[in-house]
């Protein structure tokens, strides 16, 4: 599926929750729990995306022309959001990732979690994912 198709899928899932904040957060928490933890060897200082409140780890590799992201966080809600970002951006070409417009965050009403505040590392995570994509783009044929 394309990045936009994956985004649309998430938006559709969240439509169920509209005014039900508990349901929405239960879903995100569940996504956090489902994300398999990042192997300890990748929880390195280099892979840390520092937010003010919780640490987010991001690991990337380039295989068969696609960027594979793995991530984790100390906080479960952030981990759920990390899971969503991974779902959308992993397994795509560097160019696709660089061109991606992540509209789903706004559509599902979680913009505040990505705002440029010190509250979490998510905005920095998106930036870091794009930076990886940019680095791998030079390897694209």
């Amino acid at each position, binding site marked *: 599926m394309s990045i936009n198709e994956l985004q649309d899928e998430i938006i559709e899932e969240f439509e169920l929750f509209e005014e039900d*904040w*508990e349901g929405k957060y*239960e879903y995100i*928490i569940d996504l956090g729990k489902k994300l398999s933890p990042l192997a300890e060897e990748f929880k390195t200082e280099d892979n840390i995306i520092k937010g003010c*409140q919780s640490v987010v780890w991001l690991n990337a590799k380039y295989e068969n022309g696609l960027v594979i992201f793995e991530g984790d966080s100390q*906080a*479960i*809600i952030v981990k759920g959001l990390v899971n969503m970002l991974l779902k959308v951006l992993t397994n795509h070409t560097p160019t696709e990732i660089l061109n991606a417009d992540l509209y789903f965050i706004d559509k599902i009403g979680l913009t505040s979690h990505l705002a440029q505040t010190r509250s979490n590392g998510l905005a920095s995570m998106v930036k870091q994912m794009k930076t990886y994509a940019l680095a791998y783009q030079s390897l694209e044929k």
Partner: protein
Amino acid sequence: MKLDINKIRQDFPILEQSINGKKLVYFDNAATTQKPTVVIEALKSYYEGYNANIHRGIHHLAEKATAAFEETRKTVRAFLNAKTTEEIIFTCGTTDSINLVANSYGQKFISEGDEILISTLEHHSDIVPWQMLCEGKGCILKIIPINDAGEIILEEYEKLLSPKTKLVSVVHVSNALGTINPIKTIIDKAHAFGAKVLVDGAQACSHIDIDVQALDADFYALSAHKLFGPTGLGVLYGKKELLVTMPPYRGGGEMIKEVTFEKTTYADLPYKFEAGTPNIADVVAFKFALDYIQNLGKTNIAAHENELLAYATEKLGAIEGLTIIGTAKEKVSVISFILEGIHPQDIGIILDQQGIAVRTGHHCTQPLMQRLGIPGTARASFSVYNTFEEIDALVAGILKVKKLLS
């Protein structure tokens, strides 16, 4: 006198709103307090009625603005019981006040090998300026340890004091834990070694009566916004005999007596330390915040806050898996807590969904969190306008956090 809290709440328009469809419960008062209508109106009437640059103008508006500005200085002097208004310097906040001392007093009177003592409880704003000074000067920063309850260990403090100690800079009340430090004892012991003492009063000033003369504090720093006043404004109290010996920290207009290209002579106190056009509107409005506190009475405010603290300590303490961090015998109305197996940020997000504003994270006290062995806490801090019902809402909110996240 028992305060009428519902009446007080009407003085704070911001409290009457819903967040995420729930009635706002504002428990982030240690970060900043809300502003009463009298303060908001004072800002408005200043800009509408007598905005002018102060001290130099000869016209009516300038005179009126200058008088209002200096009136606040008099009110602050009384609030802290300083000897004279020359000892009251307006700054941008507590952080700025500490930086002033580090850069002015520190640059002139602290040398290589001298020692500065701070405590484990300090906010980054009372750590970093001293680290910067030490880097430049080759002086040494030493840390007073705390016990597990979050109290300064006085015996350890005494061991650290020596003739090399030039300055002790400690927080009066811990922002992260609420601990009230035995500041008078700390000051007396430092003075016995000839060291000067700066007190970071950012958190204390809204809860405790401050008498800088009785404390014999050399410097006392505070922020207006934690006293129902405007943001971006603070005060540095300094003993006059120290301030006169200190060089200016910033150069510019207002702080000079005479300028030629060859040499400049500086203005008298307190203007020597107030370069440039000051934050006039906020200074003018700050008086109304201090008067508001005075009218309620600090003792009455503290009595209500202490009742809230006792109630919350009991209610939160009864929640399974919740640990209160900071159990000092002497505390202000701040409760830091953690929930077993749940990250503080998750607590904050779920409480916010329920309209409850708390602070989560390390509270700008990373070394303290490291000492306590935790990444951070959730912190509820109460002010005079908070109610017991709001604490009940917090308890229900925390139970919801547990339900969703366990």
